[in-house]
């Protein structure tokens, strides 16, 4: 439950530092990228182009997406040479 107006600090200030870490911008997304691992050749095009550093890479392999920060722009799907990424509508 978020604070009521009576509970918030005066003047809309934030009383502790570094709170933007807790701001998961992925909830702006209307479509999410989905990977087909069969088609992925780990070329890293998606990793290069992703504007939000939301491509998960482990040991040089593309392992999926950081949905906490992925805004669903679809650039990865657009750039993927093997069409291994498809955009799927987010349902509530």
């Amino acid at each position, binding site marked *: 439950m*978020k604070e009521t*107006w009576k509970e*918030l600090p005066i003047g809309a*200030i934030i009383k502790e530092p570094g709170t933007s870490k807790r701001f998961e911008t992925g909830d702006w997304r209307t479509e999410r990228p989905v990977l087909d691992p069969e088609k992925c050749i780990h070329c890293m095009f998606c990793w290069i182009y992703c504007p939000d550093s939301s491509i998960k890479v482990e040991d040089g392999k593309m392992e999926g997406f950081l949905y906490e920060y992925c805004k669903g722009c679809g650039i990865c799907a657009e750039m993927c040479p093997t069409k291994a990424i498809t955009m799927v509508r987010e349902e509530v």
Partner: protein
Amino acid sequence: MKVVAKTANEAMAEAMRQINPDVVAAYPITPATEIVQIFSSFVHDGLVDTEFIAVESEHSAMSACIGAAAAGARVMTSTSSQGLALMDEVLYIAAALRLPIVICEINRALSAPINIHCDHSDTMNVRDSGWIQIYAEDSQEAYDSVIQAMKIAEEAFLPAMVTADGFILSHAMQRIDMLEDEEVQAFIGEHKSPYNLLDIDNPITIGPLDLQDYFFEHKRQEADAMMKAPKVIKKVADEFGQKFGRKYGLVEEYRLDDADYAIVVMGSTAGTAKDTVDLMREKGHKVGLLRIRVFRPFPAEEILNALKNVKVVGVMDRADGVNAFGGPVFMEVRAALYESEKKPDVYSFVYGLGGRDVKPVDIERVFQMIMEADKGKKIDRLNYIGVRE
């Protein structure tokens, strides 16, 4: 206490000197120029401890004031007309950040056509910016109100502007009872700040992005501060009255007790209007005057109470609503009176734009019109007084 002769500009500059703010950031503009000009000489002469920032515009002036106030400084500035308009977007930020900044404002018409003389269009333009607005009737009140405003602002954590009519007050010499420097310091007390950007042990973020999930709560909080401000303003005025003998309220009633007809005014016109009321009383007319001193927060209850037994009210606006229902003060007074049992008729009288002189005969004309309206004559809801027809 010492008696001196001062213009409102000089008196407000003296009030600033006695307050001794940490920071003043200002840009000169007629007819308020003298305030910061005189104050800057106080800085030069070492009479204050103020960091004076001569900025390149009023937008920068208010921005610098906000930065300094957020850093925990006691902050003041001064402006007028176009200068206040240029501050507009930053005024809202000062209020929403809840920073207790005080502006010594001199009322001057907004362009165009370009004009340097008095009307209230400049402060009416920012009436919903979240600033407390106090309209002085004379230089004494301008001086007293600046001192009170600093204390009010720091207790309510809201910015406040004290206004005086351009040239009519700003450049006219009047007799002023000045307080001693120590009395002013003792009255305003230690500076209070809602938070401090420079407190490195408790780092804070000021002005973060505030979207659909929090913005409304913060605005509601700001509204609440304004709703509680009348109590603070009255408390500070009472304390001032007890200590120094000059009493102020949110509104001032003049011969209203048994009045059938009343006019409502703000600023220096009240002086002329009081004389006119006296003249008309001598002729046997039951007339009175209500002067709104504090326009923001709007003293609806006091207005309702003061005018509840009056038959007809004429509200004199020194600013036009331009295609609104009437002048801005008229609209709010009329809205407040909608809650009265007797619901007096209320008419709008726009006057004095661009410094057009208002004489007792003009005010008498307003009284005559509302008295005729009471006898059944149809008059316009919106009237322009003193314009060549």
